[in-house]
């Protein structure tokens, strides 16, 4: 438990003033979910991904998504080796514990789907052979806001595979001043020491599953989900998968708070990250402040 808090504070030294987002990202990883970071360029998306992987002691690979990226560039390719007279598989960057899919919405849907399939199955099938991905396995994808040019927005069904989507936002004045004063982030990243081993993370994941969610809490989650389905304010209701995501993420958040039971505040804390990419306002189709509106509209049972 201490280790994960160390990791959080260590990352907090690199990404300044974003403690809440860092904790959300950690909760996402404890809940075995993939993370989508969406924001304008230059606010530290990639740095956060780097810092996460390094602090948690996970093997890290980065894939820069571009419009000419091919599925083989992600998954790997079998190459004929004339010495041994057979095909040899050269694993792609996907075979790593943490995969940073940078600017995932710049690639074509074909390349995107290669990644997204791996996220769902934790395995890839190449030329008829199924290969397991390492454990733990996380995809941290970053994307630019879809209104920017040269993007292929992820379809809703694929967005749904990310447990959380977080936005970093601009740092506040103090944090930005500290950033400007401080050392180069790249140097800091390279100096990062892992605070924990992959086994520790797996243990945390197991522990999170033991966090108690009472009927009263599940009532609250159901009330929230119900509201999105029955209220005229949303374009489409939350899916059962989203409800499950809420519960898992709330458990992870409770664990980060060193509790063995989840409370409504946990749900409220993780809800913006979990629902903002799954829910659109019925009036203007935007997802801005839908989470806040949802929380304000639903009474805690």
């Amino acid at each position, binding site marked *: 438990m201490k280790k994960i808090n160390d990791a959080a504070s260590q990352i907090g030294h690199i990404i300044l003033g974003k403690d809440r987002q860092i904790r959300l990202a950690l909760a996402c990883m404890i809940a075995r979910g993939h993370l989508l970071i969406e924001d304008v360029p230059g606010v530290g998306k990639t740095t956060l991904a780097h810092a996460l992987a390094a602090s948690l002691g996970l093997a890290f690979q980065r894939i820069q998504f571009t419009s000419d990226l091919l599925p083989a560039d992600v998954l790997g390719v079998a190459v004929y080796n004339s010495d041994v007279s057979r095909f040899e598989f050269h694993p792609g960057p996907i075979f790593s514990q943490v995969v940073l899919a940078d600017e995932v919405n710049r690639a074509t849907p074909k390349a995107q789907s290669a990644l997204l399939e791996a996220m769902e199955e934790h395995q890839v099938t190449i030329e008829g052979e199924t290969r397991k991905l390492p454990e733990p396995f996380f995809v941290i994808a970053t994307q630019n806001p879809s209104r920017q040019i040269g993007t292929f927005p992820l379809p809703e069904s694929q967005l749904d595979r990310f447990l959380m989507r977080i936005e970093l936002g601009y740092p506040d004045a103090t944090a930005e001043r500290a950033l400007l004063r401080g050392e180069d982030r790249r140097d800091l990243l390279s100096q990062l020491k892992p605070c924990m081993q992959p086994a520790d993370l797996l243990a945390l994941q197991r522990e999170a599953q033991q966090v108690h969610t009472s009927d009263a809490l599940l009532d609250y989650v159901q009330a929230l989900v119900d509201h999105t389905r029955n*209220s*005229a*304010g949303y374009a489409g209701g939350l899916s059962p998968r989203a409800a499950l995501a809420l519960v898992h993420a709330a458990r992870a958040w409770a664990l980060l708070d060193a509790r*063995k*039971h989840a*409370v409504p505040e946990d749900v*409220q804390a993780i809800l913006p990250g979990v629902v903002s990419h799954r829910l659109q306002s019925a009036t203007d189709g935007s997802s801005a402040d839908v989470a806040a*509106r949802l929380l304000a509209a639903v009474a*805690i049972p």
Partner: protein
Amino acid sequence: MNAAKPIAAISLRNTVWITLTLALIAAPHAERLPLWLTVIAAVFCGWRLYLARMRLELPARWLMIFIVAAGSAAIYLEYRTLFGRDAGVALLVLMISLKLMETRTQRDGMVLAFIGYFLVITNFFYSQSIPTALYLLACVWLITATMIGLQYTREAPPTRSQLRTAAIMLAQSAPLMIVFFILFPRMQGPLWGLPTDAFAGVTGLSDSMSPGSLNKLVFSEDVALRATFAGRLPPQNRLYWRGPVLLDFDGRTWTAAPRAMRNQIELDRRENPVRYTVTVEPHNRRWLFALDMPGTLPPRAGISVDHLLLSQVPITTRTRYEMESFLDYGIGAASNPAPARMLALPAGFNPQTRVLGQQLRAQHGNSEAIMNAALKMLRDQKFVYTLEPPLLGTHAVDEFLFETRAGFCEHFASAFVVLMRAAGVPARVVTGYLGGEYNALGDYLIVRQSDAHAWTEVWLDNRGWVRVDPTNSVSPARADGGLAAALPDGVSLPRSARASNPLIHQLALTLDSMANAWNQTVLGYNLETQRALLTRAGLDDTSWRTLAVMLIAATGVITLLLALLTLRNRAHKRDPALALYRAFCAKAARAGVVRDDAEGPLDFALRFATARPDIAPAAQAITQLYVALRYKNINKNNELHELRQRVRQFAI
């Protein structure tokens, strides 16, 4: 907590709901209101929606005051009053459409919705038929849904659940509605005095007849009366529904004499009576129809010397009465029928007919022979029965008898009576209805305005007044098979008279049967039927005081039952820990820290600690216990007990 809500601005969605609902409720009035008012109300609705859509300011107060004054003045000019049914409804519609223009907040919307219910009622001033009732029920449903929508301040409810909740609420109020219907003290006559203009447009018989007055009625499908017979239905050609008897002729128009009333019937009863119940539609006259010849008097009615049943007050509501008639009868044999009046003819009209009458008298001598000769003449001279008779001039009877020889029943009746009087035989015109359509579905007879008919009565020595239907001599089919049978195909007729499509005709009969049942049971539920029903239920004292007590008791019981049902549903889910926590929150609210429904307990405890550090530890302990009870996986008995203690001790 609610203090901030009433000033919430009304949302676009709610504005659309309330505007459209009110427009739907007022829609049936459109055909009755002056056109300018309908247009103004529609313009206001459209304008309000436009302003809401464009998020523009509502019109200024001075403009509204001006429009109110101008509109009220215009209504006064239109109706010459601001009171009464028509002017009152017009004023209400105008004011509601203006109120729409100053509906800014949710609260204004609620007020408008309440007025909407009142507007619903005004429609019943004009029509109480089943379609009206169904339409207005739908309107009540919509306005209730509108009010439910107005309750949502944070987010709009989905339309389906809004409508469903409204439907459930209406269904829940149905038992109460039935109790009120049955027990509410009834008054004799209508609740409000109907203004004199209420029956301006009603079609029906009048107490005068001139050429063309009856065949206008033939095209009206309005129901004149309905009758249920106790035994077998008499044959069609004996169903003479007696109406006004016309004695005086001025050469063109027959009019009824002022009537001398009697309280008993002088009648030579010859046959077993026919018993039946008549429900007469309002016609704003005093006469009550009965088959020739009525043998009993309905309550609060008398009979004239010419055997017309007359109510003491004009028939302004649907009236039902039991009747007994003798289809074979003798009247007036004993008395002298005031021959001077029954023989009078205006001077200077119809010389040819007078000559013919004198010839008949000279030829045949006795009255019966004269009558038969005249009927034979009508039969033999190829008279034609038609709905579109040629126009007649000054000597209408002469022209009819000697030139055109084509007419409707009123021509035959009028000419025959003139001829009889010219021959010295006392005679008079009787108007009423002939026949009717039997509705097998409800086992009753429908008599429509299109069944209007005129026949004659001739006074014969020793026999008294004898009914003679000259139309029958010309066109026997009229009496046997009704209007459609008497006229050739291709003549335009009301739909009801000519059954074009058996399926449509059957449907029309079914609908009329439903309307009849509705009239009898729902609209006809009055003081008498209420008393009868309650007496049959074993209640002897039916004074309004008893009814009021029963009404209050029944209302209380039903409300209690519904409340218990609701509470049971709610208690089903309630957790004792939650109830205790709510009690704590209520105490905290009194301390000035109000918990929002969507606020988590830990967050609230933090906020409470900042606001009231003095009692923060107690609140913190309660919160910890509550969270443990609600969200921890523990054995709950001890904590619940402790929570109860602490909440009880928690003081601000």
